[in-house]
């Protein structure tokens, strides 16, 4: 398990923009904005949302350093199919690179470059996870980063999965699943022992039996 004792704190999390409006940096309370005059009847949350700040820090734990290689393998796999289709197209099209063949190639190449060469390292840089007494959270993605928090009270099952490629690299994925697929926290790229320890930890504190998590 990564070291819990040294909390990593940063105020430059991509979810909070710096510099903040008003004085005092990203985490200061903003000066109260004028409340809506016509009272609470038509309040759409303006007062609360503009006057409160939530301190956002990066989750403490990173994933294994070898995970980018996993992402590379997975990336190659899906792009290889597309490349194969284009090669087949070339042969069926009487071995001539036609106009539309060039168009397809021009679209495929930059995307393949991004997803095989750039994305894996970017994903590693972004990927982080954390677990507290009340919630589990993960940050993932590359072009679009996703920061997801699920309260432990809402967890339904916790399980680990290992794909073929993950087994090659000795990695595992922990899924803390809720009743909605969009609320399932997926943590990829943990060493097998870490993954099992995390799953055990989550199962122990989440108390999966009480209620049905909806």
């Amino acid at each position, binding site marked *: 398990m990564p070291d819990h004792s040294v909390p990593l704190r940063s105020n430059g999390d991509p979810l909070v923009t710096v510099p903040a409006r008003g004085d005092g940096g990203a985490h200061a309370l903003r000066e109260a904005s004028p409340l809506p005059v016509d009272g609470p009847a038509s309040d759409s949350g303006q007062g609360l*949302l503009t006057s409160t*700040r939530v*301190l956002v820090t990066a989750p403490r734990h990173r994933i294994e350093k070898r995970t980018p290689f996993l992402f590379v393998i997975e990336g190659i796999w899906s792009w290889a199919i597309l490349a194969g289709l284009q090669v087949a197209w070339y042969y069926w099209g009487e071995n001539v690179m036609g106009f539309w063949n060039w168009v397809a190639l021009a679209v495929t190449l930059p995307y393949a470059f991004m997803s095989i060469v750039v994305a894996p390292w970017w994903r590693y840089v972004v990927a982080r996870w954390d677990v507290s007494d009340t919630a589990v959270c993960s940050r993932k993605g590359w072009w679009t980063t996703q920061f997801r928090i699920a309260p432990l009270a809402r967890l339904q099952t916790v399980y680990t999965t290992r794909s073929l490629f993950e087994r090659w690299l000795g990695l595992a994925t922990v899924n803390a699943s809720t009743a909605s697929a969009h609320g399932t926290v997926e943590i990829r790229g943990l060493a097998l022992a870490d993954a099992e320890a995390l799953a055990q930890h989550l199962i122990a504190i989440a108390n999966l039996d009480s209620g049905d998590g909806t």
Partner: protein
Amino acid sequence: MTGPGETGTDQAEEVLRPDEPAVAEKIDPEAPWQRLSWRMLLVDPLGSLTRLLPLFLISLWLGSNRSNYWFETVVISLVVLAGLLRWLSTSYQVGRTHIILKKGFFSRQVVTVARHRIRSVDTESDLFHRVMRVSILEVGTGRADAGKSGAERFRLNAIDTALVDPLRDELLAHRRALDPTLSEEDEEQWGSKYGEDIARWRITWARFAPFSFIGFGVLFSLWFLTWQMGDMHDRIMDLAVVEGTVDRLDSLGPPWAFVGKAIAVWMVAGVLAVITYAIRYGKYALTDHGQLLYVQNGILRRKHQALDKARLRGVELRLPVYLRMLGGGRLEPIMTGTKKGAAASTLLPQAPIGDVRRVAIHILGDETPVTVGLRRHPWKAARRRLTRGLLPFWIVAGFIILYRLDSGPSADVWVRWGIPAALVFFLALSVDRIRMLGHALLPDTLVTSHGSWAAKRTILEADGIIAWTVSQSVFQRSARVATVSAATPAGGGVYSVVDMDADEAWVLAEALTPGITDVWKHDGAGDGRVSPSMGVRPE
């Protein structure tokens, strides 16, 4: 799914083997055992055979010139035999404390439902059922359909339609007794029909039908069917009316011929849509029975279905731009435990927007979420609607230009007409997206609205939210906006506030799910390390 009447571990319905002692306790010796209607023997094979129709068509088509039809004979006799066995093996009893259903020929099962736990009685009958005057009846106990196996269902398929209303009256008597507004005269006059009528279908609502995709779906399947039927497609295309119209439109020249044909197809689809809409939603009625909403609809296939308010987590007003221009909308429930897809219920089909709002307010019991003015998003979110909304335009324009490069000056007319038309269309959609974008944070309720072609205003109870996701692309980050998604087990699974101010993203989550942002309250935080832009420091 933790309805008010449900406590502890005791099950509302139980599946038992017939020789277990628990069954004997629950059987009421005085109540008679009843069977399904014998007419079900006629309906059941017909229904199964219609579902097997594609198989028959294929087998008839493959072996069209042969003399023996043993395959068809075997299938039909199997289906008839299955129906007969089901009729023989099914019997039910309405006792004083429990209702009991015995079913299964090869493996006998007994389903018992405690009468005080019954919450709803659904009925359903398709065309064959209605001709034979039988209905399918299902007893619900407030448990979600999704979590129920077939064996657990108390489902009578099918009983005499004349028995349905008395049975429903009897089974739901204990729930009506809880309703203080129901007097004795009402009870005598209305029985289980007592309830507040919220909305009823009107024939004028059919005007919205052409502005939906129902008609195109029907048209496509008809077109597909005509292809299957040999020369039918050619025969239709050779009809004098069709040929004359196509010729007249073709004589208009390239851009207008295309527009004219599109309008002609739309008009045909529109007529089909009106018919389909009227068949599917005709006789639609929404009734409020306290804890339950009853939805009835269908002309050929009648449904009378209960929606349990305990499972309702909000509503969604669907306001696609093509309906909104005519002043229409739809209303969908956000419920847990419903099956997705065809079985999911609609609260209100395409209907005037006034009715949609009225029904939504009635169901929520509060008009604020429906009528409150939404908070606008930062101007950069509006700019993003334009840049993103024009993305398909660039793709369309790019393809038109590539097509022009490939096929020469004959495609000039597409460059001249297609590109400006696409620009106007996508620009108008983007402007509409800007108008629809917004959110409101009410006590324990999230209201969010976005989209244009598929615009919707979602009203979601904070209680139904089980996780939060804030996502931000590189472009969103530089525009300082973020998309906040609330995950819920109900309805579509996730409801998002698109492109709200990034600083407010987690505040919104914290306000609706207090304590969700506690993950950041570490001890000993604040060592002052400031990271570069990604929030990550080299360790």
